């Protein structure tokens, strides 16, 4: 049943090379849908995807707004390279104000949804307001229609996807949707697309749920015109060759996926275990990426749209459950961090997160925090309502409380607000390992100084992907940095942050950066868009994106005091292993980082920096 005017898409914008040149604006309160031109002047300055959507969000909402209020907006954004043959060109972003952190939230996802969204003829779709009752948007090359979703409200993401595809029909249909976690406004809720891919972090799924928007269904194959198709084709071929010849993207990632990191990080003495009580896990051999293969659970690897790397894992468990994952972070948080050595439980927890629509990292860290609190006596047994004891190593507890969080039942209702709010409600926020209230991922910052700085300064809180310093500090790509050395780390973090902003805004996957550098991205963008960026101009666009996010956060009330790490990482030395005696040296690194960024001592961009970036 249609609940809005059926909207017919207009002619494409012929001035927009690589872009479709159109934004679809959907007002969920009134049901009206309209098209507007993509602002091409802004597209050049912010590239697209994460950058352009962040700029539009910053222009259109009050950053102090409650993230779950009607006035927040939810933007699905592709980049100029999304949907092209550029290697890894299938990514899209969900941009909004994040309810978990109160910061800007931009959550990146892969799969095939992004390419199909771009194929409808739109670069971006902006959802505003709140629907009166559950709905979904159906969008193809000729139709944009809000439809009743009451028959799928309450269903998990897999059920929702199957029902909508079956009733609409057609092989080209792709679905992004929320599960029970988003419907129940868990601050850790994700938006899942293609069943197994997540716009995971910062609670973007809760924003979707707060708008009574259950799903977004797309079907499109329109290709945007490219500025120089022949040059682009040649460039793509070169970059695919670089990726395939690179030992990480051509060998390591396809064969073992990200879960190879379990042993790397464990052997490096920085694998958080039992909520950071330890930094190695004695049972890592049971739960590692190698174990996933040796136990026969790995069926095959899987790839996103236009991706030559194929780092995804498709697994089947002895109990018959199957699906994608777990990735390194997901496996770690339900494994070592909870003290659990059962790979079946870990993988099943990952599957459940995909079905319920949870950010695996935040969900797993929250359970580990709860285990720590229970073992310390802060949570009483009566509160568990006869559920399994929240003890480290208790596999049953992981699955049980994950379900309770998704369905907002019992103690799960409080846990669903994330580890920080949960621990704080008991008077012990120090047990929540978060930055800006977002749960930290699977590397102890005391063992890797650059990544710790990246954690502390990330615009969306505890996150490793905005400046993946593990690459130089542990893996040695593009060159090996000593993880305990402080010299030049702020410079590296800034470069990685700015380059990742470019990659996210262009519509590519950050894993391409194991093989490609700024020069390569510049060539791809220029041949596609005709913008003729120099490398410096392209990196400046990335820096502009970083600063627009920072400005949003400052207006939202996030300050330099939030650029910090959990007290444990700053004050409690690691006890054993190669990093024994180390804490994180944030007090040394942060002032230098601010200076490099052209910010004052309170982390506020100076007038000079704003003028330089065209933001004054």
């Amino acid at each position: 049943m249609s609940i809005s005017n059926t909207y017919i898409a207009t002619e494409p914008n012929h001035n927009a090379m690589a872009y479709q040149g159109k934004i679809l604006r959907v007002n969920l309160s009134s049901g009206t849908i309209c098209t507007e031109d993509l602002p091409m002047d802004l597209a050049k300055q912010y590239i697209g995807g994460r950058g352009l959507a962040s700029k539009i969000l910053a222009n259109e909402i009050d950053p102090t707004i409650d993230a779950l209020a009607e006035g927040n907006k939810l933007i699905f954004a592709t980049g100029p390279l999304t949907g092209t043959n550029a290697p890894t060109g299938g990514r899209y972003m969900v941009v909004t104000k994040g309810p978990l952190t109160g910061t800007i939230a931009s959550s990146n996802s892969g799969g095939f949804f992004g390419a199909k969204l771009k194929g409808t003829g739109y670069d971006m779709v902006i959802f505003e307001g709140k629907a009166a009752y559950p709905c979904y948007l159906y969008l193809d090359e000729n139709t944009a229609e809000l439809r009743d979703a009451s028959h799928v409200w309450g269903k998990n993401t897999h059920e929702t996807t199957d029902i909508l595809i079956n009733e609409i029909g057609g092989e080209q249909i792709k679905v992004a949707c929320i599960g029970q976690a988003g419907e129940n406004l868990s601050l850790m809720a994700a938006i899942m697309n293609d069943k197994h891919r997540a716009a995971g972090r910062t609670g973007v799924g809760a924003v979707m749920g707060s708008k009574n928007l259950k799903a977004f269904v797309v079907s499109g194959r329109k290709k945007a015109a490219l500025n120089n198709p022949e040059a682009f084709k040649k460039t793509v071929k070169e970059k695919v060759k670089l990726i395939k010849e690179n030992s990480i993207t051509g060998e390591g990632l396809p064969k073992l996926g990200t879960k190879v990191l379990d042993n790397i990080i464990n052997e490096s003495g920085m694998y958080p275990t039992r909520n950071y009580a330890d930094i190695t896990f004695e049972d890592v051999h049971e739960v590692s990426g190698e174990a996933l293969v040796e136990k026969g659970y790995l069926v095959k690897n899987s790839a996103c749209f236009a991706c030559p790397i194929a780092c995804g894992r498709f697994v089947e468990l002895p109990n018959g459950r199957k699906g994608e994952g777990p990735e390194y972070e997901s496996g770690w948080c339900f494994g070592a961090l909870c003290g659990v050595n059962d790979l079946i439980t870990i993988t099943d927890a990952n599957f459940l997160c995909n079905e319920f629509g949870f950010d695996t990292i935040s969900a797993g860290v929250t359970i580990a925090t709860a285990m720590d609190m229970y073992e310390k006596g802060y949570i009483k047994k009566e509160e568990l309502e006869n559920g399994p004891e929240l003890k480290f190593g208790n596999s049953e507890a992981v699955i049980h409380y994950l379900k309770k969080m998704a369905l907002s039942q019992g103690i799960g209702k409080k846990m669903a607000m994330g580890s920080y709010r949960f621990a704080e409600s008991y008077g012990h926020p120090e047990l929540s390992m978060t930055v800006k209230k977002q749960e930290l991922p699977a590397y102890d910052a005391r063992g890797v100084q650059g990544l710790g700085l990246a954690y502390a300064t990330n615009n969306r809180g505890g996150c490793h992907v905005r400046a993946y310093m593990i690459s130089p500090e542990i893996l040695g790509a593009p060159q090996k940095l000593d993880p305990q050395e402080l010299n030049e780390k702020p410079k590296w973090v800034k470069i990685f942050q700015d380059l990742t902003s470019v990659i996210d805004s262009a519509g590519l996957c950050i894993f391409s950066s194991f093989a490609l550098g700024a020069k390569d991205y510049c060539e791809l963008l220029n041949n596609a868009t005709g913008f003729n960026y120099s490398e410096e101009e392209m990196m400046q666009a990335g820096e502009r994106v970083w600063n627009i996010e920072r400005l949003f956060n400052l207006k939202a009330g996030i300050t330099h005091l939030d650029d910090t790490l959990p007290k444990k990482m700053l004050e409690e030395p690691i006890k054993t292993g190669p990093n024994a005696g180390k804490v994180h040296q944030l007090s040394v690194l942060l002032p230098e980082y601010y200076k490099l960024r052209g910010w004052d001592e309170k982390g506020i961009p100076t007038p000079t920096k704003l003028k330089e970036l065209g933001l004054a």
Partner: protein
Amino acid sequence: MKIVVKLFATLRLNLKIGMVEIHSNSPISVLQLLQQVSKNVNSDILTELTNDNKILVGAIILIDGINVLHQNKLETIIDKDCVVSVFPPNGGG
């Protein structure tokens, strides 16, 4: 001296060997150690880790958790009991 060499990732999966113990009466370089391991497992693991006597980008060789790239690379001398962890090039995120 006893050196426990742990093999990981595709090395472990392809060779179906996770650990090799090497005993040496005198100090030994990392290169010599890996050559000895290659003999023990009947496969030249150096081709997975090095090219032209340089450690491949992304390959990781740790001695008690410290990367040899921050010591003396393949010429790092081992002169006491330790654990050497060996990974061919890999990535993640």
